């Protein structure tokens, strides 16, 4: 009996376990129709964004076969410098050449939207990842150590939460050029020290008092071991969940900042709407006439934001046992 040896190497078993838990998770997830819908939309947008390079190529081949200006230099479907000289007045309504019409500068709206999509993903996910990493580590440590460390981070969170984040970002926009990456970084850090630490700390506190922490402690585990091996794995599902919600927040905020013309981003969905607003197409009775200037981009923002939110809610019901159905 002493020759008890496990047949397979450990990593293989762990991989299998991981796959299995993923499968059970998927089984539960499948039930949530809204979350599935969210996931579907996200996948759609991901493909949509990745396909962008194809779009100008195909369109150019379709409508600019005979190349009056020279293919290589002139890019009519470029989202930033593109211009369609064949159409007399811009903005032009949707047509075969421009499925979603053109903007006042004569650029193709669909091309702008497609071009922006991967950027929205990068921005949202980067910001959310930063937020969650900061929030998880601070939340877990504050809960575990308590005392001064806890008080410091909680008061810090109080102050951060006191700042209206949009107003703060607006002020920051005066300091620096809010490029996509910088914006993601700032939003990530601001949110990470804010309310998410409170939520994750509360969760970590419930983990901290559970006896398996005591068991590890009484065996001589170090603080770092307990935080990283016991507390964080137990709050990680919740962190992941908040990541989904934070993606929504980040994309939304970027769109608003761009819409107000305060971010230095060359092209994004918010910028498209801002373009319409700043050139006066959202004023008064003409709103409905030029719907293609704002509706597609607005719908994209809304769809992507709500998809991440739906996904988060679906995951929440899996992760958070109190919401689970009996």
């Amino acid at each position, binding site marked *: 009996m002493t020759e008890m040896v496990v047949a397979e190497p450990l990593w293989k078993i762990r991989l299998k376990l991981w796959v299995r838990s993923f499968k059970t998770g998927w089984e539960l997830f499948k039930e949530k129709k809204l979350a599935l819908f969210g996931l579907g939309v996200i996948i759609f947008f991901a493909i949509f964004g990745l396909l962008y390079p194809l779009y100008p190529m195909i369109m150019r081949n379709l409508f600019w076969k005979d190349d009056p200006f020279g293919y290589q230099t002139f890019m009519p479907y470029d989202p930033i410098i593109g211009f369609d000289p064949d159409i007399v007045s811009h903005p032009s309504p949707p047509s075969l050449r421009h499925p979603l019409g053109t903007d006042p500068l004569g650029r193709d709206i669909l091309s702008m939207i497609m071009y922006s999509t991967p950027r929205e993903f990068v921005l949202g996910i980067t910001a959310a990842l930063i937020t969650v990493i900061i929030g998880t580590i601070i939340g877990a440590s504050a809960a575990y150590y308590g005392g001064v460390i806890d008080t410091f981070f909680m*008061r810090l969170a109080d102050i951060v939460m006191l700042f209206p984040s949009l*107003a703060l970002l607006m002020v920051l926009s005066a300091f620096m050029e809010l490029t996509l990456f910088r914006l993601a970084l700032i939003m990530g850090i601001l949110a990470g020290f804010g309310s998410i630490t409170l939520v994750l700390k509360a969760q970590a506190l419930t983990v901290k008092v559970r006896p398996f922490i005591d068991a590890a402690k009484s065996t001589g585990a170090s603080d770092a071991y307990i935080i990283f091996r016991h507390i964080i794995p137990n709050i990680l599902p919740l962190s992941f969940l908040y990541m989904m919600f934070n993606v929504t927040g980040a994309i939304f905020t970027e769109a608003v900042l761009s819409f107000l013309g305060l971010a230095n981003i060359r092209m994004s969905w918010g910028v498209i709407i801002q373009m319409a607003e700043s050139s006066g197409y959202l004023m008064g009775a003409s709103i409905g006439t030029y719907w293609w200037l704002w509706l597609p981009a607005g719908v994209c923002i809304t769809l992507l934001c709500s998809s991440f939110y739906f996904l988060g809610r679906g995951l929440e019901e899996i992760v958070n046992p109190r919401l689970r159905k009996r």
Partner: protein
Amino acid sequence: MLKFLGKRVLQIVILLFIYVTVVYWLIEAMPGSFVDQYLLNPKLTPEIRENLKRQFGFDKPAHIRYLIYMKNFLTLDLGISFSYFPTKVTTIIAERLPRTVFLFVTSTLVSYVLGYSLGKRAAWKRSGILDKTTTFVGIVFWTIFLPLLAIFNIWLFGVILKILPLNQFIDPNLWKTAPLSAQTIFIRLLLTALVFLIVFLIALLISNRLKTIPAKKTMLYTSSITTIVVSIVIWILSGYSIYAWDIIKHMVLPVLTLTLYSFAGSMLVMRDTMLDVIREDYITTAKAKGLPDNVVRDKHAARNALLPLVTNFVISLGFTVGGGIITETMFSWPGIGRAYLEALNTQDTPLLIGLLVFTGIFVLIAHLVADVLYAVLDPRIRY
């Protein structure tokens, strides 16, 4: 309780000072300043330049200005605006604040009442049709791009249906001949609402003492309806009713937009907490007592699920400013949010600081109110 409140107030004051300091230095550190725009003018003589600098306080070093600011802050003086020179910042806020507050209090109240009643019903019949639709619609509105919603509402109600004015606070043509300023009428409207609220609260207090449920209901309904009727009559008799109506008409769209945008927040919180509460043993006990379903839901479950909603309410106040900037821009509503955007564009430092500080105070007071509300709602909490 008093001891706790004292401690909390002290905490808030400390927090506020840190906040003001951070805000001050942040804004102070912004590159460029209001005066720079004038100083660029080559025609100005050195004396005038010096004068200008002195006038706006730029002759002193930053830390001195900070101390002066803090001293003034203690006397509730937020300085003088640059772009509206020489109007005081407090005056500007006082003018703008009622509009913003009215907009937000109305929409927040409506969305919380809506969220509360939808949320509790959705949770009670989990996975029912109501639950599914409200959750879906709620989340779509909750995550909608706010400007899109505003544009859409303007388009639908203003352009297509033509039943509501597109934007602005008032209709300038109507007010050319008005005997009173819009602000006065507006304040009076606010006062009416306040009176109504007070009457309602008193009625609520009295009805709590009444013994039977029908008596309670009659008390509440009669008092509410009487106040509404009386106030409408008074307004009509005063002859200002067309002006008041104009203001109200202009308010509908922004309030609608904000309500649609925010009701899901409270609804989802309510739903989730309700789901939690429903599992508690005292709910089973209440059912076992033979109480009708709606009594168990409203009296036992919803009452206990109310607490997190209060927290949510306070947090949502923090977003007022953010939402305010967008909504007020979209509807050309001259409130705090618009003032903030303008101040940022003109680099009106004192106004900018003033507005940020003011919102900070606003949120902190809300925190305090939430603490008190908590104690009222939950007998277990005795500070």
